[in-house]
C-alpha cells in the first residue's frame, strides 16, 4: 500500500482521497516513512515537519469527511527552503540563516495551505538559490535519485538551485514541490530529475515571503511528476498579491483544463540560436524528436530567430548578481540570523558576512558590487539592462509569429558531484537555455522527453507569451503524451 501511495500523481491522489480509498494521514505517513528511509542518503530535505504534517493531514481528513472540496486537501508537498514558513526554520541553504524562524508565511505557501496542502518539510537548495547543482548548499549536496546505467556508483547532482525539491519529488518523497527559478533553477533540476518544472510568468506568483536572490528575475513555481500536477499546483500558488508590487493583477485561468487543449494548428517556433556547436548529439536528437511529436499532433513548426540569445547568459550574470549584492545586504548580523561579534560595527559586518556566506554567494556579491560601482555602472549594469530589453523584444517579435517556442532545457544531463566545480563559468553555462525566459519574464516549462545514452532524463523546454501559461501547459501536455516518459529513478520510495 505504502509503495502505491507514493507513486500516485497528485491528480490520482485527489481522486483516491475523494473516494476514501485511503486517508490523507495514510498518504502523509507513507511519504514521511519514505523520507525517513531515503533522505539520509539523498539529503533532499533540510528539515522534516513530521508532527505538523500529520496534524495537517488529519485536518484534511476531517475536512474531506465533511465534503470539503479544496483542491489540495491532503496532498503532501516539499517546500523549497527559500519560502518563509511561519514558525518553521527557513535557511535559504545558508549558514547565515541557520537560526532564522520566520514569523510569517510566504504568500505562495499560504495559498497552498489555504487549499489544504500538507507540508512534509523544507527542501535543500543552493545557498540563496545561487547554483546549478545544489552543491553550494551549506547543508551539503543533494544526491540525484537517478543513476548512470553503467556507473551506478557515481553520485549525480539533481541540478539547482531547487535541487532538494526536484530530488524529493523524483524519489517519491513528495508528490510535488515548490521551487524558485531565477535563471533556470526549476527547469534545469526538473530536466536532471525527470520531472515537470514550471516557471510561470513574472508576476504570476507572489514573491512576498520568498527570500530574494534577484528580485526582477525570481519566479516561484511548481515541480511535479506530470504536467497536469504542475498545473494543479500552479493554480493554487498563483494570484495577485497586493503585498508584492510586481505581482500582476491578472485573473488566474484553469491551468489544469488547459492541459487538455489540442495543439492542432498552433505555431511552434524553433529558435535557431539555441542550436550551439557544442551541443551533445543526443540533445539535438531529442529536440528534433520533440519537433516531430508536435508536428504529428497537428502543430505547425516555424523557424524563428532570437538574435540576442547569445548575450543572455552574460546579461544574466550582471543583472542577477547586481540585484543580489543589494538584496543580501540585509544579512548583517544586526537583527536576525547569524552574528559574529566584532571589534566595531564594520568588523561585525565583515566577520558575520565572511562566516555566514559561502564562496559562491560571496563571489556573486562581489560581482554585483563591482558592476554597480561608479565608473562601471554604465559599462556593465546599464548595458545589461539595454540588452535585456533587446532580449525581451526578441521574444515579442517571435511571439508575433508563433504561439510557443520549443528548445532543449539544459545543455547536458545530470553531471556528477564535483564536476564543473573547478570553473564557475562552466557551471554558469548550465543556464544558457533557461536564462532568456527569466530575463524576459515569459513563462516556460521543462518536460521530461527522453533518456540519454546513460539512461539519464533529458527535458525539453516550452516557452510562451507572458500570461499565456495555458498554451504552455497544452504544448507541454502534448509532448508528455507523445514522449510517454515512464523511466524511473533508481533511488525511490518502494524501489
Amino acid at each position, binding site marked *: 500500500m505504502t509503495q502505491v501511495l507514493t507513486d500516485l500523481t497528485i491528480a490520482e491522489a485527489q481522486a483516491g482521497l475523494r473516494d476514501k480509498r485511503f486517508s490523507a494521514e495514510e498518504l502523509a505517513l507513507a511519504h514521511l516513512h519514505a523520507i525517513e528511509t531515503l533522505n539520509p542518503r539523498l539529503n533532499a530535505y533540510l528539515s522534516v515537519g513530521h508532527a505538523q504534517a500529520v496534524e495537517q493531514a488529519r485536518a484534511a481528513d476531517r475536512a474531506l469527511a465533511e465534503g470539503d472540496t479544496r483542491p489540495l486537501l491532503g496532498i503532501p508537498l516539499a517546500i523549497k527552503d527559500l519560502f518563509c514558513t511561519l514558525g518553521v526554520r527557513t535557511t535559504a541553504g545558508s549558514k547565515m540563516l541557520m537560526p532564522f524562524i520566520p514569523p*510569517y508565511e510566504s504568500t505562495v505557501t499560504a495559498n497552498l495551505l489555504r487549499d489544504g496542502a500538507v507540508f512534509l518539510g523544507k527542501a535543500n537548495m543552493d545557498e540563496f538559490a545561487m547554483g546549478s547543482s545544489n552543491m553550494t548548499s551549506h547543508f551539503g549536496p543533494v544526491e540525484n535519485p537517478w543513476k548512470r546505467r553503467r556507473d551506478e556508483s557515481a553520485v549525480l547532482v539533481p541540478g539547482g538551485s531547487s535541487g532538494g525539491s526536484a530530488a524529493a519529488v523524483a524519489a517519491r518523497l513528495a508528490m510535488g514541490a515548490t521551487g524558485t527559478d531565477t535563471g533556470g533553477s526549476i527547469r534545469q533540476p526538473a530536466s536532471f530529475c525527470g520531472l515537470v518544472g514550471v516557471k510561470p510568468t513574472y508576476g504570476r506568483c507572489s514573491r512576498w515571503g520568498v527570500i530574494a536572490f534577484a528580485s526582477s528575475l525570481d519566479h516561484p513555481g511548481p515541480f511535479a511528476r506530470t504536467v497536469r500536477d504542475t498545473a494543479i499546483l500552479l493554480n493554487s500558488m498563483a494570484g495577485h498579491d497586493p503585498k508584492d508590487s510586481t505581482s500582476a493583477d491578472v485573473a488566474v485561468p484553469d491551468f489544469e483544463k488547459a492541459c487538455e487543449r489540442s495543439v492542432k494548428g498552433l505555431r511552434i517556433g524553433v529558435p535557431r540560436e539555441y542550436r550551439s556547436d557544442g551541443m551533445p548529439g543526443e540533445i539535438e536528437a531529442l529536440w528534433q524528436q520533440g519537433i516531430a511529436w508536435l508536428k504529428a499532433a497537428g502543430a505547425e513548426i516555424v523557424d524563428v530567430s532570437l538574435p540576442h540569445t547569445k548575450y543572455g547568459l552574460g546579461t544574466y550574470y550582471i543583472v542577477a548578481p547586481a540585484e543580489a549584492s*543589494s538584496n543580501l*545586504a*540585509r544579512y548583517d548580523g*544586526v537583527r536576525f540570523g547569524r552574528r559574529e561579534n566584532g571589534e566595531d560595527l564594520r568588523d561585525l559586518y565583515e566577520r558575520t558576512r565572511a562566516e555566514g556566506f559561502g564562496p559562491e554567494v560571496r563571489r556573486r556579491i562581489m560581482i554585483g558590487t563591482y558592476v554597480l*560601482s*561608479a565608473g562601471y555602472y554604465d559599462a556593465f549594469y546599464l548595458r545589461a539592462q539595454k540588452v535585456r530589453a533587446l532580449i525581451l523584444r526578441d521574444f515579442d517579435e517571435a511571439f508575433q509569429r508563433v504561439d510557443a517556442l520549443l528548445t532543449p532545457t539544459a545543455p547536458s544531463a545530470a553531471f556528477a558531484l564535483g564536476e564543473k566545480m573547478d570553473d564557475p563559468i562552466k557551471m554558469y553555462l548550465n543556464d544558457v537555455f533557461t536564462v532568456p525566459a527569466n530575463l524576459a519574464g515569459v513563462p516556460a516549462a521543462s518536460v521530461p522527453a527522453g533518456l540519454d545514452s546513460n539512461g539519464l532524463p533529458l527535458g525539453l523546454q516550452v516557452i510562451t507569451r507572458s500570461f499565456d501559461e495555458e498554451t504552455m501547459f497544452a504544448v507541454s501536455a502534448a509532448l508528455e503524451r507523445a514522449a510517454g516518459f515512464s523511466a524511473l529513478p533508481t533511488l525511490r520510495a518502494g524501489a
Partner: protein
Amino acid sequence: MGYALEGRTGTWEVVVGLEVHAQVVSKAKLFSGAATAFGAEPNTQVSYVDAAFPGMLPVINKVCVEQAVKTGLGLNAQINNVSRFDRKNYFYADLPAGYQISQFEHPIVGKGEIEIELSDGSTKAIGVTRLHLEQDAGKSLHDQHPTKTYIDLNRAGVALMEIVSEPDIRSPEEAGAYVRKLRSILRYLGTCDGNMEEGSLRADVNVSVRKAGEEYRTRCEIKNVNSVRFVMQAVEVEALRQIDVWESGEEVRQETRLFDPNRGVTRPMRSKEDAHDYRYFPDPDLLPLVLEQGWVDALKAGLPELPDAKKARFIGDYGLSAYDASVLVAEQATAWFFEVVAKGRDAKQAANWVTGDFFAAMNRLGRTIEDPPVSAEALGRLLDLMADKTINGKIAKEVFEAMVETGKDPAAIVDEKGLRQVTDTGAIDAAVDKILAANQDKVAEYKSGKDKLFGFFVGQTMKAMAGKGNPALVNEILKRRLG
C-alpha cells in the same frame, strides 16, 4: 549689491543652496503600514518590512505620493507623471536593508520656485531644483550603554520629501527666509508639520564663497541643521571660515560638516576611510510610479489658498500693508484668526490689533494662535465697541487687558468698570473749563503761537475724565474754546 563679507583680499559673495528634508504627514510609512507617531517607545512602530526581514517587500503608500504631489503643486513645480525609485546602497546599523529607497534619476517633482520676502520689503525668487520621496533611516543611540549601540527603528522607513533648492541664496537672511517660507507652504498644504525641534524638518546647507563675477568655488555641506536661526548662523560662520581658508592661500575642501551652535563653528564630520559609492540602481521590487493626469488635476483643484495668494488678497481686499499681510499669512491659523476679526469691520484696525496688542499678549503669556489668549470673536466685539463709539481706543486697550485676564466679554467689562465713553458735550465743556482755568499761563502761550500745547490740553482733559471722553468731541470743544 546686497549681503557681502569683507575679507583681507576684498569683498566676498556667499552662495547657498539648501536641501530640506521634510517628513511627510502620513499615518503610515512610505513602504509599510507601520505607524509614524513621534515619541513612541523605541522599536514599537516597526514592521517586518521596515526591519528588512527576509522576503519582505515594499509597497508604496499612496498617501505619501499624494502629499509629495501636493507639495510640488504648492511650489509651482513640474509634476513628473512617471518617476522611479532607486536603491542607495550603504551599510549602517540603523539602515536595516543595507539600502535606502530613494529617487535618484527620476524624481516625482521637478523644477519649481519659492518667493521669499526680505526685511527691506523686497522679494526674491529662489529656484527649486527637485523634490523626491525617500525613506528615513532609523536612529543609532550611542549613549545608552558604555560598550553597546542601541538601534531604534521607529523612524526607519518614514517618508521624507527631499526638497533641493538651486544655489540662488546669497545671504543668511535669504537662507532663513527660504526655510521659513518653505515651512509655511508645507504647513498650509498639511504635507509636513514643519516641526524642526522634533526633526520633521531638517536642512542640509551647502555654502561656498566667491568674488564678484567668479564661477562657483568649492562648497561644503553642513548637515542636519535643525532651526532657522542655526541655518542663518551656519551660513555666516561657514562663509567666514571659507574666506579665511582662501585668504590664507589654501583651498577649501569639499566635505560634509556639522554646525555646533554652542561654539558657533562648523567642524568636519568624521571622515570615512573610504568615500561612499552608493551604487544607485532602480529598485527591482517597485514598478515605476505612474500618476494619472486627472488625479494630479484633482489634487491641484483641491489645494488650499497658499501664503502668496492669501497675501495678495489681504493687500487687495483689505488694504493691508505688504508687511502686515506677510505677518498675518505666515501661519494659516493666524490668517484665519485675522479674517474672523476683520469680517464686517475695519480691516486695517483689525490687522493692527491682531499684530499689536493680541500678538504681544500671546507672546507674553506663551500662548499660541491655536490656543489664543482672546478669541477672534471676542476681539471682534471689542472692535465693534470702538466702532459704535461706546469706548475710545485708549479705553479699548484697558478692556483688552481685562479680557485677557478674566476671559470676560468686552461689553461686560465696559459695563462693570463704567468705561463707557462720555459724549455729553456739557460734561466735556465742564472738564475743559476746569483745565483752562487751572492753566491760564499755558492758554496764553498757546494763543501766542505755541500750537504744540494743544496736545497738552487734550491730555489733561482726558485725564480729568478718566480717559472716557470721546476724543473727537474733546478735540472739537478745545479747538472752539481756544480758537
